[in-house]
Every structure is written in structure tokens, then in C-alpha cells.
């Protein structure tokens, strides 16, 4: 890996690590009763959000699903605002009105996560329609799971985006289960990428646990959209290694062995191995200083990462509205590996 490549890989690694560490803390928070309602973590799928969002500018927008923490963090939502939202605080990114499944941060281009499967596809096409109307060169991205591709919104959204050549990228995170229903059971054609042809748009399948592969595929799709070439369907084949939602049983529909097999394909571990293949990359230190990233090696133990052990003090919604700190402060500031990734 040359200097430029390893610097980029480090940036991707930081994005993934940020998501992983935050999700682990949120899962603990759920176990301790600090997080209410459903909490769908993104553990195992980090490479998709990290790889795709690394190709987007601040002005580009993403629309996401019920499993949206990773997309929010990768697009630049400060971890503190995500945590505050799940803790039900007025300082949360949705001012405490949304929780895990309804994250909004239009300031950084997170246009919303949703508790309903499918609408994000249509909404991303809609944002792309606005960008086309204004000819402003922006790109919209829809993240959705394999469950959404058997929904009418997928059919209608991809068709409209195709006929109007909208600047949108449809990213299917095929984690192989719609809640607990196997995709192999529910899909007449389980090859999602091949469905692009049905709408006259390119469909590309990538290993969704290989962030470098996602990065390359997303680069091409985003470039195509930005240059007026129209939409792309990107199928990222991946796996969630935690239950559908925190606290749910996990081995009624899949085996421990299968989960362990996929844990061994952890996107973070795979990139770490690649990064360290030739010893510590030469520009490691410089890159780290520049991006103010983790001061320890990225291998620092999750146990050493202080999390939101105490909930923030409740505040009134009027006082705190619009005053969310852009940078995390205590207790998250001590968690250096939980800082937002540097923006490209």
C-alpha cells in the first residue's frame, strides 16, 4: 500500500472504528436501560456506510433506514448528538423526538432515517430530482436493506430515477435477513445487483465487508451520478453480527456457527491486516496528527473507551434547541477514538 492509499485506508478505518465503538456503547446503554425502544445496531456492516460516505461531500445527502446509526456517523453527525438522541435528550439530533430510528441532521446531509422500509429509496430519488432541477451537481444516496428490494418503493424508485437520469446512488446493504426472514426465501431473484438491468441502470455487486472495494465501487457510482450519467444500484453483500434489534434472541433463524463465520470476516479486522501487512505504514504518524484521530493504535481495547456512563442532564427543549455542540465534550471527549472522522 503506497502512502496515499494507506492514508485513505486509515481514514476509512477511522470511520468504521467510530461506528463500531459507538454501536458497542449504545448496545451497552440499551442493556443498562438507558436507551429506550428499539435499537438496531450496525455492527458488522460498517464498511458500507464508511466506504460510501467517504465518497460524498458535505453538500451531498443520504437517506437511511431503521438501522441508521452507522450512516449518521459516517455522514458526520457528531457522536454526542447521536447518543443524546438515543438517550431521549433535547440535545439529540432530532431533539429527542425520534430515537434510534428517526435521526435527522440536515446540516450535515443526513436527511433522515426511517422506521418504515422503502421510503428512503423514493426520497433519495426526490432529493436527486431537486438537484437536477437546480443543476447544482449534488448527489443523493439511499441506504436500504435486502428487505426493501422486494418492496414496491424499490421498483417505483429505481424506475423513476432511471427514466429521469437522476443523480442518485441506491445502496442495498444485503445483510441476508429482513428482520429474521432469510432473503434467500423471500426473493424470487436473490441477485440484487442483477435487478438493475430490469430498470436500465447499472447494478454492481461488491463484498460489503471490504471497505476498499466499497470505496472503489462508490467512487464510480457517485462520479457517474454527479456527471449526469444517472443512478447506480450498488449491492453490498454483508452481515449483521448482532441481533436484529438489541435484546432480541438471535439463534432461532440462524446458527452460532454462521454468525462466528461472519465475525471472522469483520471489515475492521480485514483492513487492519492489510494496513499492517508491510509493518506500520510510513505516513501513519503524520496522518494521525493531521486528522487529530486516535492517539493510540486503532487496536485499543473497547474496554478502555469511556462511554456515556452517565446520561446528560435533562434540559428543556426550548433552551437547547439549535445549540448542540458541534464537537463532543465530556464524557465523550475523553474517548478519542469516538471523535468524528476528519472530513475529506
Amino acid at each position: 500500500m503506497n502512502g496515499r492509499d494507506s492514508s485513505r485506508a486509515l481514514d476509512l478505518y477511522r470511520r468504521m472504528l467510530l461506528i463500531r465503538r459507538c454501536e458497542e456503547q449504545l448496545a451497552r446503554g440499551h442493556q443498562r436501560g438507558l436507551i429506550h425502544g428499539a435499537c438496531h445496531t450496525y455492527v458488522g456492516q460498517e464498511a458500507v456506510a464508511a466506504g460510501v460516505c467517504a465518497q460524498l461531500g458535505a453538500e451531498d445527502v443520504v437517506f437511511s433506514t431503521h438501522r441508521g446509526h452507522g450512516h449518521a456517523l459516517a455522514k458526520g453527525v457528531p457522536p454526542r448528538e447521536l447518543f443524546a438522541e438515543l438517550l431521549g435528550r433535547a440535545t439529540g439530533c432530532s431533539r429527542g423526538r425520534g430515537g434510534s430510528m428517526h435521526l435527522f441532521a440536515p446540516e450535515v446531509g443526513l436527511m433522515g432515517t426511517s422506521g418504515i422500509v422503502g421510503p428512503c429509496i423514493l426520497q433519495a430519488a426526490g432529493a436527486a430530482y431537486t438537484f437536477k432541477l437546480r443543476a447544482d451537481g449534488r448527489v443523493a444516496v439511499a441506504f436500504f436493506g435486502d428487505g426493501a428490494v422486494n418492496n414496491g418503493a424499490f421498483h417505483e424508485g429505481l424506475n423513476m430515477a432511471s427514466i429521469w437520469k437522476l443523480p442518485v446512488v441506491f445502496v442495498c446493504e444485503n445483510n441476508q435477513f429482513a428482520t429474521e426472514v432469510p432473503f434467500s426465501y423471500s426473493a424470487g431473484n436473490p441477485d440484487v445487483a442483477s435487478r438493475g438491468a430490469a430498470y436500465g441502470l447499472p447494478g454492481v455487486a461488491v463484498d460489503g465487508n471490504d471497505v476498499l472495494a466499497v470505496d472503489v465501487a462508490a467512487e464510480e457510482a457517485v462520479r457517474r451520478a454527479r456527471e449526469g450519467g444517472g443512478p447506480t444500484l450498488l449491492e453490498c453483500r454483508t452481515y449483521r453480527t448482532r441481533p436484529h434489534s438489541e435484546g432480541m434472541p438471535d439463534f432461532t433463524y440462524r446458527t452460532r456457527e454462521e454468525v462466528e463465520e461472519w465475525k471472522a470476516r469483520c471489515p475492521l479486522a480485514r483492513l487492519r491486516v492489510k494496513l499492517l501487512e508491510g509493518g506500520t505504514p510510513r505516513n501513519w504518524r503524520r496522518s494521525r496528527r493531521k486528522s487529530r484521530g486516535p492517539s493510540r493504535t486503532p487496536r485499543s481495547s473497547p474496554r478502555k473507551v469511556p462511554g456515556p456512563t452517565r446520561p446528560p442532564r435533562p434540559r428543556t427543549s426550548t433552551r437547547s434547541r439549535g445549540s448542540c455542540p458541534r464537537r463532543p465534550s465530556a464524557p465523550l471527549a475523553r474517548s478519542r477514538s469516538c471523535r468524528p472522522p476528519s472530513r475529506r
Partner: protein
Amino acid sequence: MQATLEALTEEMARDPAIFVLGEGIGKRGGNFRTTAGLYERYGPLRLCDTPICERGFVGLACGAAMAGARPVVDFMFVDFVLDALGEIFNQIAKVQYMSGGRLRMPVLLRGCIGVGHSAATHHSGSYHPLFAHIPGLRVAVPSNPADAKGLLRHALRGHDPVVFLEHRELLGVKGPVPEGDWEIPFGRAAVVRPGKDVTVVALSLMVRHALAACAALEKEGISVELIDPRTVAPLDVDTVLASVRKTGRLLIVDEAFGPFGLGSEIAAQVAERGLDQLDAPIRRLHGAHAPTPYSPPLEAAVAPTAKTVERAIRDLLED
């Protein structure tokens, strides 16, 4: 129809963020001529003919509004847009609240309602109570060209999602429309004609039927105060209450289904706030709670007419 076309034409010239989505609204100019001549002026990007996928293009309009555009969805018949209720109720109606007001949702959803022309059950619905039930939506149901123009212009200048429903039997109706740049704010009922014996609240085409009934009753010395709410969300109950204070009697006429409908809502609010003003039980006259039939004599039996409104007023005066 010409009145709303004027409003849309003027607003599209004023605001480049407005674009129209719908089936046949491009070169064809709309099934009901809602966009006649606009395609030639504004081109295919702002007059966007859609495939037949109501859920799809309503969801697309939601995303377009989130990104800063002002979509007008022309869905022809309200029956068609029922396919998109999830997008309307779960997304369009909720985004402003869920985003803490940081995203705006200026989507105008417009189309026809109403029984007539043997259109049968998939082209005859009136579902304004359904939309008015959902927090976050505004629902306008005009009864004449001037109101249609003023309300449409107001919808095109606000930040909120608006469901704008016109009765198909009113589309060809002519009437005076003031010149100039004016709009009608939502939530202000019109007193169509003043009276002292009985208050009638009527919506959309029912206003015309009620006017005919009022004229017939006037010859017998019965004085009816007729109120047109114009928007059912927000609903101006204050004007109705002020009238009931005067007359002591209230009849609500709406072509839509009765259960959980406009009549129920107005009756409940009047009972809550002005029960002691009433000299008789509140009466409601609605369309039949049944699918709309095709055969002309059957169709004529399911919607209120000037005759049935007149009879209902007489019944109320006898209470």
C-alpha cells in the same frame, strides 16, 4: 379550473423551485386541464409526466421538498393517491416535526373528489376527513373559483404539506375572481349568506346545493345562515359557534362518509363549547356510507342534493 391554473402559472413564474408531478400533466396539460399551457412555458423538468406509480412519485415529492424544492403532485382523482397514504401519513406529515423544524415540507397534493358522471367507485371518493385526521397536514376543499385561487396561492407560499381537493362537478363552474396578488389564509370559514333561523355548514359542492335549498326556503320566509369552512384542517369552528349563538340550530352537510367525519367533528366541538346555545339536536347530512355505484339512479341516491338538504333543514326546524 381556470382560477387555479392562473394561480399556479403566476406562482411558477415567481418561484423556480415549484415543479409539477403527475400522470398526463405535461404536454397533455392534465386530465382536468390543471396544467394547460404550462409545459410549453416551463418544459419537461418542471412539468414532469410520471409513470402510474402514486406511491413512488408522492415519496419522490417528499424527498424533493426535503432538499428544498416545492413539488406539486397532481394525482387526478383522490382515489388514486390512496396508494400513497403511507408516504403522506408517515413521511410527508411527520418530517417537519421529527426534524425539529429544520426540514420544511411544502408539498401540494391536489386532485379531484366527488360523486358524479357515473364515475363509479374508484373515481368518486371524498376522503378529506381521512387527511384531516393526521397531524401535520392541511386540507383545503374550495367551493368556488375565487376561493380555489386564493387557497391554492396560499398553499404555494407556505411551508406545510397541503392536500387540495376540488369536486369534479365544480371544475367547470364560473364565478368572479378578484385581480391582483391576494391569497386566502387557511382556517377562516366564509359566511356565504347570513341568516337567523338555522345554521348550515356545507363543504365543496354541497355549498351550491345548500344555496339552492336556501333560495327555495327563503320564499317561505325561512332565513338560513350558510357557512363554508373552506379548509377542514385547520377547521374554523369559531365562525360556526358564533352563528349557532344566533340561530340555535345546526346542520352539517358533507358528501364524504359520515362516521368520524366532518359532521362528527363540528358537532363534537360545538357540543363541547356551545351546548347551551343549541335549541335542537345537531343534525348531519352525509353521503351514503357505501361504495359509490355506477348506475345513474343508484348514484343519485348516495350523495346529498339540493332537495335532501332542503328537507334536512325543514326537519331541523321542526325539532
